[in-house]
């Protein structure tokens, strides 16, 4: 054993980027070892897609097919927003186990574990969104803006996921029990997702609610995503959709660092 300890040359300190990529690799390994996590991520949105399309679709939009055309971009936003909760739970679990103490006692870029979490999140969002989109295509959804529109929409989803991710990283850092992170997350997200234009056009809502729905960031994201996938998104729609993710990152990334170093 003494040999193992003495005959090792200390390698050169790696870069911050290299540190972050190693944590990204960890996230990929998690998919390999815990593939069932994908089941949690996609089952709810699949149920929503099927139920809303076939149960409410006809009543809401005239026919299930027409409703799906309206609903599918929204359910993609909902999927990404809800999935951010799971990464907060994962972080809370990691922190409870002392794993992060090891990371914090290493001479690495302090934010790299979080950068790695983000890589994992983005992969999760992409996989979940692809599955939902595939199901949508099978059911008859057609993105009128074609493949470029879909790619632009996915880029937008990544930005949304990145911004929302910080909210749950901060919650994960603040709250010790993973289930509390989940409960709190959904308590905050349900009104945000349902009081939006994801499921229905807000035209029939009372004025006070419509006023909220129209400025709800989730609505702004959904509007932009619909535009991108159907063609005809305006620059201002895209910019408005990105306001929340950019603001969240600007405020919460430094908060994350502060909370993490303060622990």
């Amino acid at each position, binding site marked *: *054993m*003494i*040999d*193992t*300890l*003495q005959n*090792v*040359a*200390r*390698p*050169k*300190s*790696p870069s911050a980027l*290299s*540190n972050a990529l*190693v944590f990204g*690799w*960890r996230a990929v*390994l*998690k998919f390999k*070892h*815990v593939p069932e996590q994908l089941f949690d991520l996609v089952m709810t949105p699949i149920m929503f897609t099927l139920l809303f399309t076939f149960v409410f679709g006809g009543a809401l939009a005239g026919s299930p097919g027409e409703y799906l055309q309206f609903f599918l971009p929204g359910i993609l936003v909902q999927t990404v927003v809800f999935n951010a909760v799971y990464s907060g739970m994962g972080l809370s679990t*990691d922190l409870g*186990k*002392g*794993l*992060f*103490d*090891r*990371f*914090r*006692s*290493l*001479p*690495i870029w302090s934010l790299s574990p979080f950068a790695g979490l983000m890589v994992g999140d983005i992969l999760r969002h992409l996989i979940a969104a692809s599955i939902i989109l595939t199901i949508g295509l099978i059911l008859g959804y057609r993105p009128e803006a074609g493949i470029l529109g879909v790619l632009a929409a996915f880029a937008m989803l990544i930005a949304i996921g990145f911004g929302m991710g910080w909210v749950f990283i901060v919650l994960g850092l603040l709250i010790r029990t993973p289930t509390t992170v989940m409960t709190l997350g959904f308590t905050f997200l349900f009104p945000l997702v349902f009081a939006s234009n994801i499921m229905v056009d807000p035209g029939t809502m009372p004025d006070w609610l419509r006023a909220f729905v129209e400025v709800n960031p989730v609505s702004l994201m959904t509007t932009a995503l619909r535009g991108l996938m159907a063609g005809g998104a305006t620059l201002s729609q895209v910019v408005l959709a990105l306001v929340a993710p950019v603001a969240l990152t600007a405020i919460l990334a430094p908060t994350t660092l502060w909370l993490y170093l*303060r*622990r």
Partner: protein
Amino acid sequence: MNDASPRGVPSTGFVQSAISARGLVKTFGRLRAVDGVDLDVPRGMIFAILGPNGAGKTTLMRMLATLSRPDAGSATVMGHDLVQAPHAVRAAIAMTGQFASLDEDLTGRENLVLLARLWGFRGRAAKARSDDLLAAFGLSEAATKQVRDYSGGMRRRLDIAASLVVTPGVLFLDEPTTGLDPNARKDVWGMIRGLAEAGVTILLTTQYLEEADQLAARIAVIDHGRKIAEGTSRELKAATGSGFLHVALADVARLDQAATILERRLEHPVQRSAEGAELSVLAGTAKAANEALADLVAAGIELSDFSMGQPSLEEVFFALTGQPGLGESRKGGDKP
């Protein structure tokens, strides 16, 4: 970082302490978890911090490992200031926390490769380093198993291996054998001794007096956030006084009665072992001990064993803190 040599030891030529702390304080609200601790740990030594649960051992160690910022006081670790140069401290230390700091979903090898890459080993070198460590810690066969399927002893071994990807100047071990069975505990002890032979300074916390006694060259006793004693195990015992009478009763039911008799005769507090079948008390002289034993026999209390000698560390702790011993106790204490 000015640590050019492999073990993070600045090659300045003169002997420095591995750890030198002055007046470290950490408060949580109104609780002073660590309340002005000085500590000097020479290089290459196994140093134990001994104390009951909640004494502040872990908090003290977390400060020294840069995981928690001191509210007052200062310290250097391998010559680097804790607050001014935490990154340099981190490059010179490794810490194995109380709870396995491993990713349960990953395999043993993946855990080590992850850390090797974070330390700067690339591709094949990271894998080779991990395989060397797995072999050195007897984990080669379990390399591709997920850590969630490891036994407690295997986890502990992997956890310590994970701290040795790059040989640290100082290794912090927070209660390294808590929750391990006796065999696994002996394994870990062997490992710790091996590391010390390789020149690693080791600071460990423990609530097992036996562990401190067996492993450490020096012991600091911590209680309520303060250091109440420090020395070699022999010095601590000598300071408490020799002439401890240990008695074991044949009938445990008469323990209270026996304790009363001993206390009345010897006029010192009587301590009970954790299992409850033994009593020990400072007797001072052989004559006094003899008289006390005679009292027990006269009262019809049958003894299964008795001895006189140096106090055990448990008794030292009792004498220092006024609290009964902690953790597990040993059969018969330290009989000469």
